[in-house]
C-alpha cells in the first residue's frame, strides 16, 4: 500500500471540500454559533452570576446541550460527506479513470477517509475550542476537561464517518446515509438505556448499552464529551449531586471512557476500514 497515493487522494478530497465550499460553510456557521454562544451565555451570567455549584451545574448543562447540537452537526456532516465518498464516484464513472492509474482501491478508500477525517477533526477542534473559550469568557465557567472535550467530539465524528464511508462501498449514497443516521440515533438511545441500567443496577439494560457500544461506539465518545464538559467532581460533590442516579443516566452526562473502550474505538475504526477495503475490492466497477 502506498502512503503517497493515500495522501494524494486525501489532498484531492480536502481540495474538493474547499472548492465545494464545505469548509467555508462550516467556518461561517462556526463564527455565527460562537457569537450567539457568547451573547447567550453572557445573558445567563448577567441574570444569575455563576457563584455556586448549582449555578455552575446549570451552566455546564447548557454547555453540554450546546455540545450536543454541535455533535449532531458533526455527525450529519460526517454522514453526508462520507456516504457518497466512494459509491457516488463509482456510479458517476469518476473512479474508472482514477483506478486505471497505478493506485489500489484500498488507497482510494483510505485517502477519501483521511481527507474527510482531516476536515471533520479540524472543524471539531477549532470550533470546539472557540465555543469553550466563548463560554469561559462569558461566564468564567471552566469544565472538568476542556482540552479533551473537542477531541471526543472529533472521535464521534470519525466513527460515524467510518461507518458512512464503509457503507458507501456497497450501498447507494442515500441508503448508506440513512443507515448511518439511524445507527447514530440508535447508538445514542442505547447509551441512554445502558446509563439507566448502570444507575439502577439492571444487568439487561446495562448489557444492551454495552452491546450497542461494541456495535457502534459513537456514544462512548459522546459520553466522554458530556463528562469532559461537566464541572469538576469536587464541585458536583459540594452540590450533593455527584452520585445522584438521575444525574448518572441523563443523556447529557457522562465520564471519560475507560482506556479499554478507547482502544475498542480504535480497533473498531481500523476493522471497519479493513472491511470497507475488502468490500470495495470485490465490487464490480
Amino acid at each position: 500500500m502506498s502512503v503517497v497515493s493515500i495522501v494524494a487522494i486525501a489532498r484531492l478530497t480536502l481540495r474538493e471540500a474547499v472548492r465545494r465550499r464545505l469548509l467555508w460553510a462550516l467556518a461561517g456557521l462556526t463564527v455565527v454559533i460562537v457569537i450567539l454562544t457568547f451573547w447567550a451565555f453572557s445573558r445567563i451570567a448577567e441574570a444569575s452570576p455563576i457563584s455556586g455549584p448549582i449555578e455552575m451545574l446549570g451552566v455546564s448543562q447548557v454547555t453540554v446541550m450546546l455540545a450536543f447540537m454541535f455533535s449532531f452537526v458533526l455527525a450529519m456532516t460526517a454522514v453526508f460527506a462520507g456516504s457518497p465518498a466512494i459509491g457516488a464516484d463509482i456510479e458517476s464513472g469518476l473512479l474508472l479513470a482514477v483506478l486505471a492509474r497505478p493506485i489500489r482501491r484500498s488507497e482510494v478508500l483510505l485517502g477519501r477517509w483521511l481527507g474527510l477525517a482531516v476536515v471533520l477533526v479540524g472543524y471539531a477542534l477549532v470550533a470546539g475550542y472557540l465555543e469553550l473559550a466563548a463560554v469561559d469568557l462569558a461566564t468564567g465557567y471552566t469544565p472538568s476537561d476542556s482540552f479533551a472535550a473537542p477531541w471526543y467530539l472529533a472521535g464521534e465524528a470519525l466513527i460515524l464517518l467510518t461507518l458512512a464511508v464503509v457503507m458507501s462501498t456497497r450501498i447507494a449514497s442515500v441508503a448508506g446515509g440513512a443507515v448511518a443516521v439511524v445507527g447514530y440515533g440508535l447508538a445514542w438511545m442505547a447509551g441512554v438505556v445502558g446509563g439507566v441500567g448502570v444507575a439502577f443496577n439492571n444487568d439487561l439494560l446495562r448489557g444492551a448499552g454495552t452491546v450497542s457500544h461494541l456495535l457502534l461506539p459513537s456514544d462512548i465518545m459522546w459520553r466522554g464529551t458530556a463528562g469532559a464538559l461537566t464541572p469538576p467532581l469536587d464541585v458536583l460533590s459540594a452540590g450533593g449531586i455527584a452520585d445522584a442516579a438521575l444525574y448518572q443516566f441523563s443523556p447529557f452526562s457522562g465520564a471519560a471512557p475507560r482506556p479499554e473502550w478507547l482502544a475498542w474505538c480504535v480497533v473498531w475504526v481500523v476493522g471497519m476500514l479493513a472491511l470497507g477495503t475488502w468490500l470495495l475490492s470485490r465490487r464490480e466497477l
Partner: protein
Amino acid sequence: MTVPRGEVFGFLGPNGAGKTTAVKLLLGLSRPTTGEGRVLGAPLGDVPARRRIGYLPELFRYQGWMSAREVLALHCELAGLERAEWEPEIRATLDLVGLTASAERRTGVYSKGMQQRLGLGVALLGRPGLVVLDEPTSALDPVGRQDVRRIIGALRDRGTTVFLNSHLLTEVERVCDRVAIVDHGRVVSELTMADLRHERGVAIRVTGLDDRGRDVGAVYGSARVDGEWLNVDGVAEAEIPALVARLVADGGAIHAVVPTHHTLEERFMALLDTGPDTEPAAASKGFAASGAAADTAGEVPADAGTSATAGSSAGAANSGAPK
C-alpha cells in the same frame, strides 16, 4: 487473442458482447472469474503496469469542480510522473486535444465533446505504452473525430499500442491495423484491414443461365445467386473478364458487371448473423473465462502488448465464416 506492441487494434462487437468488460479486465477494474491474460507483459490488474497505460472510459467523467489543467495535473500525479514533467506534459496534451483555450474553465461546464477530449488527453498523459480507448468518438463532432484519427495516427507513428473499442465501424476501418469481433464474450473473428481490402469480388447481372451461373461462378470464387445477380466473392480482379466470357459462352446475357469489396460493416453483420457461437450460454462465462489458460499462455509472445484468454478455439472455428 494477442495484440502486439505498436498495433492499432479494433475491438468490435454488438451491445452486450463483452467489449467494455474485456477492457475492464485488462485494466484490473474487474476480476476474471477464470482464465488469465497479460498486459504489457504483466498479469491482469498489475498495479505497476498501469503506470504505462492510458485509458479513456466509455463513461468519461472528471472532477467537475476542477479545471482541465487541474484534472491533467491530478493524473500526472496519479500516474507517477516526475513533478518537473507535469507542466510541459500538460501543455502539450492540452494543445493536442484542442483544449488550451479552455484549460482554466471548470470541467463541470464543459460540453460532452469537450469532456471526451479531456478524457483523451488524460489517456495520453505520460506517453503510455498502451492506450485503451473505449468509444473515443461517441460525443465528438466530425472535426473531433478527425482529430481523434489524427491522434491515433500519431500514436501509431511513435509505436504506442492502441486498443480501440468502438461501434463506429467506418472509423475503425480507417484507423485500425487489425480488428477482433466479439459476440457473447467470445472472439468470433480476427482480421487485418489488409485482409479486408483484399476480399474483393464482383456482382454480375446475368440472365438466361439459372443455376449454371452459380456453377460457373464457383470456379472463380464463392458464388451465390440473388435474383438476376450473380455474386462471386474472392475472385481476382484480373479474372473478371474471363468469368464474364465464360458466362457469355454458356449462353448468359450480361446486363451489368460491378466490382465489389467488403466493408468492415458487411463482414461484421455477416459474422453476427451467421456465426454459430451465439448461444446465450457463452455469455455467462465472461470474456476472459472462455478458454483454458493453457490454450493461450504459450501463444503470448515475449513482446506482447496485450493478450487475454478469449475463446481462441471459437475464433479459429470461425475463420472460414461466410464472406
